[in-house]
């Protein structure tokens, strides 16, 4: 191969080849935000699939009344693990760690994040935390059986290996804090010339709001988990009522982090949707400022509503009233977003490509999840459905139907940019269709079961719940089939699909203006921003051939 040809190939493959470094060391010791983003992506995807398998096993156990494939202790360990893996190893680090790292610096025209080494360190902390959590399954007294919430007094007494799992989550928290710190600094300090605050893409805005929650709330989880470890190891009695402690204090401390964590999970997902909808509607986003503002409002108000997890805990009635009121306030900025997305679609020139389909599914599923959240936010109805499958259905609608589908949307939207190859759209649409159907069959059944009184976290149930549980299990298989088709099609496309260099979706944000895949420092020439992130007209005017985006940074 001639040198010229070699040089051309390196330029074509962007950050994959332009440093000349290869092997595993070029990845796990790389400070390039795109490589770290991909590291995160494959790590979280791995744990997502682990979580999916655990979920499927739980559904098989619940397929029929009585013991099917496992006993109660195994089931307890399984739902604990499913929760811990999905929440701490997939959904919290998922979008910020993977797509935030990959896309955000390019979106603001930066060569990298502010602290690239700290960024790498955060992935290492994630990896160490994950190993600790996994180790806790096979050592000590066996897999933790407390549920992902680690409620005292049970978590202080359980003979299973709770302490190590807690420590693993503690380490994972630091990874999250470092990511947040890095993003806030990067967004403040590294924006390109012309990238004013009102030109920042909404995905980056949502990461900015999320980053503040990560910085301010995560330390509280850290200290809470350490307190439980102290309770177990030293017998401090902090949460033991018999010794002057307060078990409800644990719930306060836990949810002071874990409710804002819900917004760490959903806000970046909303950002993805806000970036995708205008591109596939060929229209500027409706109400840019309100969407950016509502991200901050959700982050702020969402941090003050943790008490709605505790309506039945024995907390004071005054607190129930206050937290219920605050909960209803969070619905306002969330509804602003939904309204603005739908208004963007209105009279747009909509193309139903896979990222758009996932985004549209998000709007519907998130709305259902959000509205059932209000049923839980009202104390009178919450008392009836608390700790039933209704709650399980609700948060899967928000977390899986919301964040999960947004994650899939981002995979179909951004990953081709980083691989320079496109997947086939037809199988992606079929997969989306299956997932959408399977999802609703599975989780709508759970909601109905919960309304009828089936409690969560039991491996068995009364015979009258048998039919719907069978339906839900079949739904989980449809969902899994769709997921499998989606992943096979996507990765086959990314590795062997048709190569492209342009701007496949016609996006107006900066990541579509650089070469495909982007070079290590993101731009061949430092970008100067002259128009807003959803100004498709300016994009068309800028291109020499009059077509939106030519894929090269001229």
């Amino acid at each position, binding site marked *: 191969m001639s040198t010229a040809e070699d040089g051309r190939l390196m330029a074509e493959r962007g950050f994959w080849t332009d440093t000349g470094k290869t092997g595993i060391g070029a990845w796990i010791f790389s400070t390039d935000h795109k490589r770290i983003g991909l590291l995160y992506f494959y790590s979280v995807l791995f744990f997502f699939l682990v979580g999916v398998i655990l979920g499927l096993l739980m559904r098989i156990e619940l397929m029929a009344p009585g013991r099917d494939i496992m006993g109660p202790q195994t089931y307890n360990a399984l739902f604990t693990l499913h929760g811990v893996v999905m929440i701490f190893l997939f959904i919290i680090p998922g979008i910020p760690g993977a797509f935030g790292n990959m896309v955000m610096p390019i979106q603001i025209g930066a060569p990298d994040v502010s602290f690239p080494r700290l960024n790498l360190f955060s992935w290492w902390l994630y990896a160490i935390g994950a190993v600790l959590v996994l180790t806790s399954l096979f050592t000590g007294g066996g897999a933790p059986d407390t549920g992902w919430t680690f409620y005292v007094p049970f978590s202080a007494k359980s003979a299973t290996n709770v302490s190590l799992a807690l420590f693993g989550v503690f380490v994972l928290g630091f990874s999250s804090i470092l990511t947040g710190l890095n993003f806030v600094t990067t967004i403040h300090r590294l924006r390109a010339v012309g990238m004013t605050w009102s030109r920042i893409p909404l995905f980056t805005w949502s990461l900015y709001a999320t980053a503040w929650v990560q910085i301010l709330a995560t330390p509280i989880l850290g200290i809470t988990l350490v307190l439980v470890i102290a309770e177990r190891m030293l017998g401090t009695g902090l949460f033991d009522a018999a010794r002057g402690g307060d078990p409800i204090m644990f719930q*306060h401390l836990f949810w*002071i982090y874990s409710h804002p964590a819900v917004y760490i999970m959903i806000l970046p997902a909303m950002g993805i949707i806000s970036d995708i909808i205008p591109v596939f509607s060929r229209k500027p986003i409706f109400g840019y400022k309100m969407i950016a503002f509502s991200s901050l409002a959700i982050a702020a108000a969402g*941090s*003050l509503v943790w*008490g709605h997890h505790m309506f039945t805990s*024995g907390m*004071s009635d*005054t*607190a129930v009233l*206050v937290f219920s009121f605050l909960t209803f306030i969070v619905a306002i900025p969330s509804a602003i977003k939904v309204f603005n997305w739908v208004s963007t679609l209105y009279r747009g020139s909509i193309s139903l490509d896979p990222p758009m389909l996932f985004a549209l599914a998000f709007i519907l599923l998130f709305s259902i999840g959000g509205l059932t959240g209000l049923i839980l936010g009202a104390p009178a109805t919450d008392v009836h459905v608390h700790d039933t499958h209704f709650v399980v259905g609700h948060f899967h609608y928000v977390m899986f139907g919301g964040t999960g589908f947004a994650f899939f949307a981002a995979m179909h939207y951004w990953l081709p940019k980083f691989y320079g190859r496109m997947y086939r759209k037809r199988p992606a649409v079929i997969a989306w269709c299956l997932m959408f159907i399977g999802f609703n069959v599975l989780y709508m059944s759970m909601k109905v079961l919960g309304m009828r009184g089936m409690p969560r976290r039991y491996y068995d149930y009364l015979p009258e719940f048998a039919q719907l549980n069978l339906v839900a299990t079949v739904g989980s298989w449809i969902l899994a089939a769709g997921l499998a088709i989606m992943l096979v099609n996507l990765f086959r496309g990314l590795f062997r699909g048709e190569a492209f260099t342009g701007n496949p979706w016609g996006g107006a944000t900066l990541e579509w203006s650089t070469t495909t895949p982007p070079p290590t420092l993101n731009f061949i020439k430092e970008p100067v921003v002259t128009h807003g992130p959803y100004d498709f007209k300016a994009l068309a005017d800028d291109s020499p051939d009059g077509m939106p985006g030519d894929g090269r940074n001229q």
Partner: protein
Amino acid sequence: MTAQPHEHNIISFRKLAAVWATLLVLTAATIAVTRFDLGGLKVIGALTIACTKAGLVIAFFMHMKYENRLLQILLFVAVVTLAIFIGLTFFDVLYR
């Protein structure tokens, strides 16, 4: 204030001793309030004394009083956030 760190960061021995003495007095006060039955005020009293002590340590021993405005604001934001979190839990603790 990195330009002239030495002028600003040296705190006189007298001042440090005064802060230390104040901390000792406040520690005594912490113990003293436990002797009285103040009901709900007991927590507020203890927290007020603890906050004052932490404030003194941060301001003088940790030099925050002599740091630049940005750092002070950042610390203030963190403290206010924590105060809001703790404050809201009192809707539970005080009315249980």
